């Protein structure tokens, strides 16, 4: 029993450490409990869709997919078009998703193909791919829109006549999803429709794991060679997992930006990639195992820390800026720590696995 307990402790070391830090920091930061809960509800509804989209590639053995940035870009392109055409309300969100769908699928296929060529190095390749496609995105948005791609709405075009402005006000779809059905639970306002959509995604993930495609992905995630020898189309299935994750990320980004109301065209997609992966890692996920509790728990922990640390920094050391940098440090430090622990633990497991076989053979051979 003790070994089992120890095992659970080691597996979830990261969430526990963060939890302890948060519990200590709450009193220092002086933020009221009510404020924190309300903040968590809105942040949970805003980020869940994006973080959940990370689960499928992990199941398929592609590791934590920094290609989520690709999906976010596709979502933003959709939003740019509907703002330009001035489509408002739910129709605007629907159309944005519809426009971003083909783009996300295309980027997903491209991403999956590249990752297939860099087997064993998926995670670092997906980071670099995120930067590369960001360059292409800037080429299209900063230089393409306005001259090559006709844009009518002058408010989002730069003064020089082409290229999209850095910050766009999405007033025609701001909070449309969240405000549509609002539940009053005690003194907290809960954006019920968004929570419903997130719930639907959770059901989809659970259902998807049970389909033949989901099973193939789980098999490939565990051992690609055996899956291939059993006749599973490994390359195609890996690309499919990336396409699904990219499409979900584009929808997630649209939900995220409609909640915030403004979009900074050139870095909100990079930021979101970083925060989502930090969140799921804080939730206890690893490069080979990720579940829905990891995602949702991770969001709460990450954003609690995100909100508290600047205030705690201010109270403790008298400068919010330190709190600000502390927050950046925590999100990167946590990713580094989680990755190191995961790699290290995998080595320990392999070693003990080998030792177990060896002892068994030594004793087995005795008879």
């Amino acid at each position, binding site marked *: 029993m003790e070994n089992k307990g120890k095992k659970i402790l080691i597996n979830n070391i990261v969430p526990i450490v963060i939890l302890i830090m948060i519990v200590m920091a709450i009193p220092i930061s002086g933020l009221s409990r009510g404020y924190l809960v309300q903040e968590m509800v809105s942040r949970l509804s805003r980020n869940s869709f994006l973080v959940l989209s990370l689960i499928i590639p992990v199941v398929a053995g592609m590791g934590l997919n920094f290609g989520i940035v690709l999906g976010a870009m596709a979502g933003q392109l959709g939003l740019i078009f*509907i703002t330009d*055409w*001035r*489509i*408002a*309300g*739910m*129709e*605007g969100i*629907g*159309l944005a998703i*519809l*426009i971003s*769908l083909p783009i996300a699928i295309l980027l997903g296929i491209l991403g999956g193909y590249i990752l297939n060529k860099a087997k064993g190095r998926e995670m670092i390749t997906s980071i670099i791919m995120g930067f590369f496609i960001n360059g292409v995105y800037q080429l299209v948005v900063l230089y393409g829109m306005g001259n090559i791609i006709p844009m009518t709405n002058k408010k989002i075009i730069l003064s020089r006549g082409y290229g999209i402005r850095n910050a766009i006000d999405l007033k*025609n779809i701001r909070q449309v999803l969240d405000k549509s059905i609002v539940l009053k639970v005690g003194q907290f306002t809960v954006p019920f429709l968004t929570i419903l959509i997130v719930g639907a995604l959770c059901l989809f993930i659970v259902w998807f794991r049970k389909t033949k495609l989901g099973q193939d992905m789980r098999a490939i995630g565990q051992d690609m060679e055996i899956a291939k020898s059993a006749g599973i189309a490994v390359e195609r299935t890996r690309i499919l997992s990336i396409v699904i994750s990219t499409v979900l990320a584009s929808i997630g980004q649209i939900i995220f930006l409609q909640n915030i109301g403004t979009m900074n065209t050139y870095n909100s997609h990079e930021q979101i990639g970083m925060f989502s992966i930090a969140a799921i890692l804080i939730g206890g996920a690893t490069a080979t195992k990720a579940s829905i509790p990891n995602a949702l728990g991770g969001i709460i922990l990450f954003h609690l820390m995100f909100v508290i640390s600047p205030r705690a920094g201010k109270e403790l050391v008298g400068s919010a800026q330190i709190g600000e940098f502390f927050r950046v440090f925590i999100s990167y430090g946590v990713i580094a720590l989680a990755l190191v622990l995961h790699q290290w633990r995998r080595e320990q497991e392999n070693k003990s696995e080998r030792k177990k076989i060896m002892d068994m053979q030594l004793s087995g051979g005795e008879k």
Partner: protein
Amino acid sequence: MMKTIFIRIGVILAMIILGVFLFISGKEHVIFIENKGEKYTPKNAYYILDGEKEVKIKAKKKKREYAKGVNHTIEIRFKDTSGVEKKIVKEFKTKMGKRITINTAMIESDLWLKIEEE
């Protein structure tokens, strides 16, 4: 196999049609409302566009409104030449690429709605 191809093409077509529909019903149109009558212009008039809150418009003034979708109703309230409070409800349609100006003062005459090329 042919069946799946047809189904898939059908779904793609449906998505495109859905997109067009969303575009039309979601498009925000610019509607100008002015209070300039030929003979008589009420000192101030009030209008409610698509059930939004009531807006006051002084004489000779012009206001810009954004309205989503195709069918709209406008309810105008003003005092006529003899000082009697009048309330009139009109319906109108917005069309793609057309600019609409509604003249509250001339609401009763048939010149209340002007549609020009944008």
